[in-house]
């Protein structure tokens, strides 16, 4: 200890002490954080208090249309048996609570925080069995097969969402939104629950592995960007035609005017 005590008046002693202190608090914080995270993962199977809290939120925010016991009304469907995934998607993307009645609920800024959304999901899930919120495993795009996902996507999804997932029109004001920027979890939940006008793709129709492949495909083409330059909204020949008639011919006409003008 003598060596240590002789150096205690060293000019850098204070710095060393400070670093040591920061290191200890930092490690403790990380340890504590990982413990609480582990706890949170365990409690995705909801506690009774979550269900109760979710019930209160439901009565305050959803019951006007879906009924006090989620039995449904003229303005909204029954939510018994839709499962936690449906609530997590609809509320998590801001589609519910609905801003106004219309052909379909539109995405808007999310109204609840993550805890409230999980409480609401827990409440609705407690009313009847339905699709659960997918676990990390089924959303892991490193384990998916993008090429197979692409095939599944083209056969099942592209007719509404467009081959490049840019979205498309449905009848009477309904539409399939773009899938660019939608989180893995929400894509999975949409397939499992069929929100708005979307059909349900249950596990026997598209297996969980195939759902993961589809998500992998979508995330791959999103990450790849466009190989050929500006994508013009990935809308296909209409956008290309519009571009050549406006920008393309516009530049050409500017040059023709320049070439045939002469000082007179």
């Amino acid at each position, binding site marked *: 200890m003598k060596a240590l005590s002789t150096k205690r008046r060293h000019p850098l002693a204070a710095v060393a002490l400070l670093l040591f202190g920061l290191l200890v608090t930092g490690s403790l914080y990380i340890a504590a954080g990982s413990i609480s995270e582990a706890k949170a993962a365990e409690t995705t199977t909801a506690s009774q208090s979550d269900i109760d809290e979710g019930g209160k939120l439901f009565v305050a925010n959803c019951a006007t249309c879906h009924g006090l016991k989620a039995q449904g009304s003229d303005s909204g469907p029954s939510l018994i048996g839709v499962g936690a995934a449906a609530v997590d998607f609809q509320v998590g993307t801001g589609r519910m609570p609905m801003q106004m009645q219309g052909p379909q609920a539109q995405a808007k800024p999310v109204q609840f925080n993550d805890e409230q959304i999980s409480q609401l999901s827990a409440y609705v899930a407690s009313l009847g069995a339905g699709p659960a919120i997918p676990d990390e495993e089924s959303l892991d795009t490193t384990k998916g097969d993008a090429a197979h996902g692409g095939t599944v996507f083209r056969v099942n999804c592209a007719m509404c969402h467009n*081959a490049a997932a840019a979205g498309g029109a449905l009848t009477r*004001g309904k539409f399939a939104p773009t899938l660019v920027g939608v989180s893995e979890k929400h894509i999975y939940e949409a397939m499992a629950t069929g929100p708005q006008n979307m059909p349900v793709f249950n596990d026997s129709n598209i297996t969980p592995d195939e759902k993961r492949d589809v998500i992998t*495909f979508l995330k791959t083409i999103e990450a790849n960007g466009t190989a*050929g330059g500006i994508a013009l909204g990935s809308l296909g020949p*209409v*956008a290309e*035609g519009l*571009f050549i008639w406006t920008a393309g011919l516009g530049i050409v006409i500017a*040059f*023709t005017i320049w070439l045939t003008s002469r000082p007179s």
Partner: protein
Amino acid sequence: MTTTNEFTASTKTGRLADFVDSRVGASGMVKEFGRKIFPDHWSFMFGEVAMYCFVLLLLSGTFLTFFFDPSMAHVVYEGSYVPLKGIGMSTAMASTLDISFDVRGGLFMRQVHHWSALLFVASLSVHMLRVFFTGAFRRPRELNWVVGGVLLIMGLAAGFTGYSLPDDLLSGNGLRIIDGVMKAIPVVGTYLSMFFFGGEFPGEHVIPRLYSLHIMIVPAVIILLLVIHLFMVVTHKHTQYPGPGRTNDNVVGFPVGPVYAAKAGGFFFIIFGIIAMISGLVQINPVWNYGPYDPSPVSAGTQPDWYIGFVDGALRLMPGVLGNFSFEWNIPFPWGSNTLVLSVLLPALVPAGALFAVMFAWPWIERWVTKDNREHHLLDRPRNAPFRTAMGAAGVVFYSVMWAAASSDLIATHFHVALNDVTYWLRTLFFLGPIIAFWLTRRICLSLQRKDREIVLHGREAGIIQMSPEGGFSEKHEEIDVYKRYLLTSFNDNKYIPAQPDAAGHISRKEKRRAKISKFFFEDRVAPVTPSELEAAHAAHGHHEVEGDKQDSIEK
């Protein structure tokens, strides 16, 4: 026949040039062709743009043929585009992907080819619109108008056959529609489809067949027609806009050599540059997004390239049933019942057919109605031919409504309206739009002509308000210069010609019909200012009120 060549060149280059010239007679051609005069106007250059696009198409297309394999044999894609790796597809699709991702510069060349195709047809169309609206198709150029029309159709054919070659989902959907239209033709339809596809759709033959058409027959016909077209341009000489010093017997402009040769050469590289820039920056036809063709999926946003869009739009507008009336007729025959699918046959063939029929026949229709069989080398300002301009506008609206219908789904999503409403509106406009356009355009033309008359007779409003000694206010009008006045007063004026009896004194029914159309076209007319009118106006000049007081002199 011997010609003694007196000229002996003193330099090496001169001797070489003389050697060539005395054998091919190039200097004669240069002398003849180099002195051809072309008038200068920006709207005269779209045909040139189309021609340069075509040159680019040949160059980039040749590059693509080095790597493209038009086979429908099944392969498993193992190239470098990950989201399609291990997927089964045709060799055509796989080689298109290879061009896009594994051939150096391949994607750029594909985009050059496709963008110049779009610009080719677009500039062809604008060129035809210019020719129509300025009346450049009149005698002696009627045949060249027809050749131009056939060139447009060949352009569409080239575009469509090329669009189908990559065998991706989008082009496959397009071929499926062609298959449907073929099969809708009564009696022979199913046979036509079988012959075209070499069996049941999609078969294994259609891509190689389209390839032969796309790289040999269609371009060859285009080149042939292009040569005829240009030959006739040289024979007829170029038309020019009216102006002082420009008559029906001269051409005012610059000679080909050296001015136009230099300008045109430079312009080619400008067009080249524009297309290269667009192709380098903007993506077109990303076949890797669409995936290989498979008859089961149809993607949202499936449209043809813009120039086929109007036919697709007509198909989209056509209802399958109208109330209880079905457009699918089952006609009983002794051997069973044959189906007549009018909901496909009518929209696919009738609007396009009508459009092209009127387009081709228009020079003769106009000649018949106006009884004007003179040669015209001076162009009309569109306002001075209200009937023609109005007919053209009606045609453009008719086309554009169908064109818009091809993107009805994108109109719905991007303007947040219901797809059904878009369809209902466009169906209404399909019938009413051309009528409204005709009426509105003619009124606008007549009003512009009235304005021209005003300006000639009363001068330009100077914006200076004068107060007379008596205290009255009037606006000063400045007389326009003689050049401008010439432009505003000397135009080809068509009048209503009543039905004329023939030699035997008999008025035929056809002649009566002609008179009816002539009345419809020319009943409302603004005559050019005559010298006597101008003199009268000048004599009365100097006391204009703020409000115009000569309204009575305008109509007729």
